[in-house]
């Protein structure tokens, strides 16, 4: 009997020691979640180097985009398995809040004030992660938008896309293209302020929120834009698309051009490989003379979650991951994303001719445009409330179920009501 007891005691002791020893020996584990498969490639490649620099074990996990916020809430609620640092999309982020108590990630104000590197990040980009005066995240990219076009097809109807000045001219040419070749000019989904419409809308300079954060959806400029855009939709020159068939639309010659942020350029690769078409890039046609010739779409930021221990060190880690200059040109070379620090933009990698576009220097064009990205006042309610109300009404307007005036009026009323 006593022997058995002894054995049990010994076994527990051994187990306990083993457990503690294991804990004591293990390096600091930093759990990192990212939603973006194409960013993760960069992190995986740099993992060893980051681990070495900070003496940590970096656990990288790709959490699917549509389950990201839910999963974050769930693990933080349970207090287990939650990440220390996250990489999440900059638009429609759903986790930042003007009130730091309601936000899932901590404000970084005290760190960024002291940071020399952070001072180099374009202010327009930082605005996206600044809610209620607090900076919550470090932007990963800038995503300037260019126009990618199938020169072969456009030339076949006698249009030199390089000479087009405005969107109105573009759509006139598009009508000709569709009439003669049954080829669409642009991709388009009717979901509202997303993709093509979102990119062109930014060129108009219309703000959806005034300085006090009140929605301004029902303004004359907005009505004019929506009318203009619905008119373009109804002219039938834009192609319905899906994330899955996009590269096929280009490769099959169904669609002749698209507005593309840096991360989306690779959609053209399959079409280039067919060898049937010549592709070129240029700045966006203008909405109005003198307006901006580019915009921005997508993007991500890094932040520290509320439950994470040792935020001081974590801040150093995320700043290093996002902005260590030595590695930033790799982000462009491998992930094709323009880094947000202008101090690295004169690197050789950006000056390479791009064989996909007949040797055009895409990198230089993107850098030039990145400096001109228009600023939008989104605040912390834009994506969660105002854009939903706008999009809901816009789908009805686009389908011809309500007039532009009535739809925007309703959207404005709903957005106001939602704000209470």
């Amino acid at each position, binding site marked *: 009997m006593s022997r058995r007891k002894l054995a049990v005691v010994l076994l527990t002791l051994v187990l306990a020691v083993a457990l503690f020893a294991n804990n004591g020996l293990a390096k600091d584990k930093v759990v990192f979640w990212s939603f973006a498969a194409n960013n993760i490639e960069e992190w995986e490649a740099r993992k060893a180097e980051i681990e070495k620099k900070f003496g940590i074990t970096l656990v990288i996990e790709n959490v699917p*985009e549509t389950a990201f916020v839910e999963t974050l809430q*769930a693990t933080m*609620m*349970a207090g287990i398995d939650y990440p220390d640092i996250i990489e999440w999309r900059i638009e429609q982020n759903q986790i930042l809040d003007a009130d730091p108590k309601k936000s899932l990630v901590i404000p970084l104000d005290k760190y960024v004030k002291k940071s020399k590197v952070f001072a180099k990040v374009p202010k327009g980009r930082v605005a996206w992660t600044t809610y209620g005066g607090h900076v919550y995240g470090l932007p990963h990219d800038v995503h300037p938008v260019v126009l990618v076009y199938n020169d072969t097809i456009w030339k076949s109807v006698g249009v030199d896309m390089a000479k087009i000045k405005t969107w109105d001219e573009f759509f006139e040419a598009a009508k000709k293209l569709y009439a003669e070749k049954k080829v669409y000019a642009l991709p388009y989904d009717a979901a509202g302020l997303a993709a093509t419409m979102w990119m062109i809308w930014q060129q108009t300079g219309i703000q959806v929120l005034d300085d006090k954060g009140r929605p301004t959806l029902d303004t004359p400029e907005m009505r004019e834009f929506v009318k203009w855009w619905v008119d373009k939709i109804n002219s039938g020159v834009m192609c319905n698309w899906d*994330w*899955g068939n996009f590269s*096929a*639309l280009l490769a099959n010659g169904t669609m002749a051009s698209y507005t593309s942020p840096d*991360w989306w350029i690779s959609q053209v690769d399959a079409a280039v490989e067919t060898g049937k078409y010549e592709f070129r890039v240029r700045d966006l046609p203008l909405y109005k003379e003198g307006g901006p010739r580019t915009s921005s779409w997508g993007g991500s930021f890094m932040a520290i979650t509320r439950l994470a221990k040792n935020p001081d060190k974590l801040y150093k880690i995320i700043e290093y991951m996002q902005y260590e200059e030595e590695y930033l040109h790799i982000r462009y070379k491998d992930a094709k994303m323009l880094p947000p620090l202008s101090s690295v933009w004169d690197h050789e990698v950006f000056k390479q001719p791009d064989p996909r576009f007949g040797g055009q220097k895409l990198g230089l064009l993107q850098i030039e445009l990145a400096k001109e990205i228009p600023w939008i006042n989104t605040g912390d309610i834009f994506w969660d409330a105002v854009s939903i109300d706008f999009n809901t009404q816009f789908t009805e307007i686009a389908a011809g179920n309500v007039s532009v005036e009535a739809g925007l009026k309703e959207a404005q009323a709903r957005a106001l009501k939602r704000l209470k």
Partner: protein
Amino acid sequence: MALSKPAPERETRLFGLTRKITAKIKAKKIRRGLAIGVMCFIALFYLAPLLWLFDTSFRPKVEIFNVPPRILQGPPWETFRSYSLESFKVAIGRYQMHQGFLNSVLVTAGAIILTLLVCSLAAYAFALLKFPGRDVIFYCILATMMLPITTMLAPLFKVMQSYGLYNKHIGLILLYSTSAFGVFLLRQYYVRLPISLIEAAVVDGASKFRIWWWIVLPLGKPVLSTLAIYQFRYVWNDFLVPLILLRSKNLHTLPIKLQVMDSITIAKDYDAMIATGFIAILIPIVFFLLFQRHFLEGLSGSLKE
């Protein structure tokens, strides 16, 4: 003479009659053939989306969105040349579809086994044993059939977290095995088991547990397979509950894998999704073809009484 005259007449008349009959039979045959043809056509049309899925799951990504479908562009045997297993490779390599498959199998098998054991034991007590409160408890269990779990998503999520069963397969398995329908179905069957066998066992001094294990369970095989198939269809295809309860990639079941693939933007791999969908529906279809009778009985067996 007198006879010879009407003979041809009669013959022609007879001939005409048989002709009429054969014509009628012919018409009937044509009508029958027509009906069969029309029904077969409708069935084929009905299955067209599935056939398209089967076809495209072996095609390269660029051919998925061909209009008209690739198989109709030129002679089919020639289009078969582009067949490959590439989409399955992408599904396995990039999305660990095989792991999703194993997870689905694990959860489904676990849920079926546990459901059968737990429900059968309870149904045995309700059907063949006498104890105070039996009928009240039974009706209470029946009433829980009206408590669908999906209306209580948020509480379910919180409760599973408090049990420490969030993001665990065992949590799902336990959740799935609370099948009031199962208890009900088995009880209805056990009530009609030949009582003499059980009485004989009682005389032999067998314990109640042994009677369940050695007599009731084997005798109830048909109804157990019905319940197993019912659970199989439910668990294998269930989506919403694992969607909110499983978070780790390596625990995702096939439907969740599909949702994850769908949530990827930039370049959505529809080829991998189609391949995964193909696997996800292939298993039930194979089972169905093997055990057709049980599948259909599960639906309609009780009606025959």
